[in-house]
């Protein structure tokens, strides 16, 4: 696990990292969990990409009052997984990392679709999965299904 230590050193040095926690892959599933400021994400992504990481997924979690963005990076052959968590909702929009990882394009669009979280300078931020309906962000805790969600056909214009 030597490169694990070297990775830990690099992670500490990257800016905007507020708190680094080492976790075991057996019972948590990831090696490093670091919470970071939204501004530091592109820089962290670029640094991890040089280390040979790829973006596993990017999602948001809604805890009622606050929302947070979760990024998970992993490597190919000897996967030590790094999870970056950054506060999202009350803070301003997080910068998009489509430039570094093009895979994030659709995932960010899905997070915008489901949670309504904006991403700064995303090439083409619009709904990915749902119909064009104002304010429909189902995965938020404050989402309540209105009468128009009663399971009837809804007139949606073709995107």
């Amino acid at each position: 696990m030597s490169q694990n230590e070297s990775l830990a050193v690099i992670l500490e040095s990257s800016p905007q990292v507020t708190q680094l926690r080492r976790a075991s892959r057996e019972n948590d599933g990831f090696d490093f969990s670091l919470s970071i400021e939204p501004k530091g994400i592109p820089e962290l992504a670029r640094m991890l990409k040089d280390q040979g990481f790829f973006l596993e997924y990017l999602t948001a979690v809604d805890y009622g009052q606050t929302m947070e963005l979760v990024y998970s990076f992993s490597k190919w052959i000897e996967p030590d997984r790094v999870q970056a968590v950054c506060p999202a909702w009350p803070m301003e929009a997080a910068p998009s990392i489509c430039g570094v990882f093009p895979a994030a394009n659709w995932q960010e669009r899905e997070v915008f679709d489901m949670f309504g979280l904006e991403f700064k300078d995303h090439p083409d931020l619009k709904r990915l999965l749902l119909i064009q309906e104002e304010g429909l962000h189902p995965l938020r805790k404050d989402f309540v299904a209105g009468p128009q969600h009663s399971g009837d056909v809804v007139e949606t214009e073709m995107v």
Partner: protein
Amino acid sequence: MLRKTLTDDTFYLNMGPQHPSTHGVLRLLLRLDGERIVECEPVLGYSHRGHEHMAQTRSYLRFMPNPCRMDYLAGLMYNHAYCLAVERACGIEAPPRAQFIRVICAELNRISSHLLWFGAYLLDLGGFTPFLYAFDDREDVLSILGEITGSRLTYSYCRFGGVARDLTPKFIELTKAFIPKLRVRLKDYDTLVSKNVIFINRTKDVGVITKEQARDYSVTGPNLRACGVPHDQRRCEPYSVYPEIDFEVITADGANGEGDCYDRYLVRMQEMEESLRIVEQALQRLPEGPIRAKGVAQEPAPPPGAYQYCYESARGMLGIYLVSDGSRVPVRMKWRTPSFSNLSILPILLPGTLVADTVAILGSLDLVIPEIDR
């Protein structure tokens, strides 16, 4: 809006939600210049059913039937992955016999998923007959799995901490009879299709994915292994009983780390043989013992925290990210499905190819659309 002003003489073609070779309801908005594709934009969401919203509003047990409806070709694997994830969150350990049974059924499910892919892929390339031979073998696998799970496609066979029912002697006998039969059939497919000139012309050097592209678009599974990267979750992050079973990770010897449709085809065909070997070894090593861990609550309530589980499904790396606050209903359950990222690479593979290649490349990526839209 999508419709850019058509200055040059290109026109839009909707390989629309209803199309014989989009394997479900995927819509490809193609901009064509004659037969050549200038630009492609997949439009998703036509079979979005809100699995993750259901996960947030139901207890762990009531969410059990959903995973196998996300990817109905590898339903048992998703069920297995879901139970493993919840077991990791609650700190339960399934008894060894149950783990072996789960691995046997998961590998049989992988074989049935690859068989259906093989049939559907040849159907896309115009050969009608292999589709029915592949379905014939797949029916054998379904009847074997139906023997103990009771269903053909949507299995809820694994429980938290074990499996629902023990293996019956008929199951073991049927599997033992099935393995040599499939090996002979796979040899036939190899001679009939792998060496077929038209098939080679249609798939060689078509839809080439390089390692860098695979990393950028986080492609996983057979598509990644076809680029020569031996990344297999069962070997890199061993889970359940896979460390005790020896099988090698198949990678196509892509010339310089580039995988085309033909490599992806070869990887999946050899993976079926590997799965057969795994099933054989698992059957021999099947220990006696209980099939359910004692004292596991029907409705588990994992301690607060965030857990992640990565599993090797038939199409690639399946990640489940679980955030629990100690109650019986999870705060958030994110399903990282492999087809989502496998499809995201299509817009850079298609420009410059012909319409017939779209079908070949789309087929070789082995997508299941409800798994993308979740």
